[in-house]
């Protein structure tokens, strides 16, 4: 786990947290998540245990590079910027860049509130009732980076391209048609 993180930091121009105890705690958390879910979900975020739903928070998460650049560290602070690794800048908790709708998936698969019209009235006033929540539907698509040609198959494009670091906006949905020869 540590070797993988060190290699990834080198490749992507960032560093590991200089606090060895804190770093050990993070690796311990990652290891626990890998044993629990089969993949190293971010130790500081609540995972669902469903790969496709947690894909963006598998370490290194989709949000690492912009967070390291802007705040000096990623959300859990495993990866840090050079000045932080050299002790020139201190870090603390940073804002969550992950969209709210993705955060919500780790909660409440039991019930949700829905506004409905009561059958006895025709006035149109709606009341809130609890109805079973449907499991989140994942619609996988093919995406390609217009800058480097990287192709991936996932719900939405990565926050930044893992190959050329182009922004999410550089990704376009790729539609393919399969034909069979008669």
């Amino acid at each position, binding site marked *: 786990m540590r070797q993988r993180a060190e290699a990834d930091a080198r490749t992507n121009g960032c560093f590991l947290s200089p606090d060895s105890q*804190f770093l050990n*705690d*993070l690796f*311990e*958390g*990652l290891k*626990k*998540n890998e044993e629990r879910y089969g993949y190293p979900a971010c*130790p*500081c*975020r*609540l*995972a669902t245990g469903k790969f496709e739903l947690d894909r963006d928070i598998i370490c290194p998460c989709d949000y690492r590079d912009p967070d390291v650049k802007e705040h000096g560290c990623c959300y*859990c*602070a495993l990866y840090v910027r050079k000045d932080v690794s050299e002790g020139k800048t201190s870090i*603390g*908790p940073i804002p*969550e860049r992950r969209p709210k709708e993705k*955060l*919500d998936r*780790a*909660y*409440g*698969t*039991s*019930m949700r509130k829905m506004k409905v019209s009561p059958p006895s009235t025709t006035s149109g006033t709606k009341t809130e009732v609890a109805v079973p929540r449907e499991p989140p539907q994942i619609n996988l698509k093919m995406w390609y980076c217009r800058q480097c040609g990287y192709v991936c198959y996932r719900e939405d494009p990565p926050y930044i391209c893992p190959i050329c670091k182009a922004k999410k906006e550089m990704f376009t949905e790729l539609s393919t048609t399969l034909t069979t020869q008669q």
Partner: protein
Amino acid sequence: MKSVKVTGKNSKHEVFLYTLSTCAWCKLTKKFLTDNKIEYEYVDVDLCSDKDRDIIRKDIESRGGEPRYPIIIIDDKILIHGFRKDKITEALGI
């Protein structure tokens, strides 16, 4: 929902935490409170059932918070997101 109570000499304030068992920031927060002999109670949200997660989410939202951990609730009214030593120290008067 399984909550864990950590006893301490200083029980002047009622301190409750929502944490993740894998989170290093949560661990730092617990250590800080323990080192300062603060009595507190915590729930590891990642170890909770779906139903309990639902209840926790609603509780956090009703307090105007977001699902980011650790969450420190002091005397049922002050909510602190993340290990913010300055804010925790100020709220607990330590």
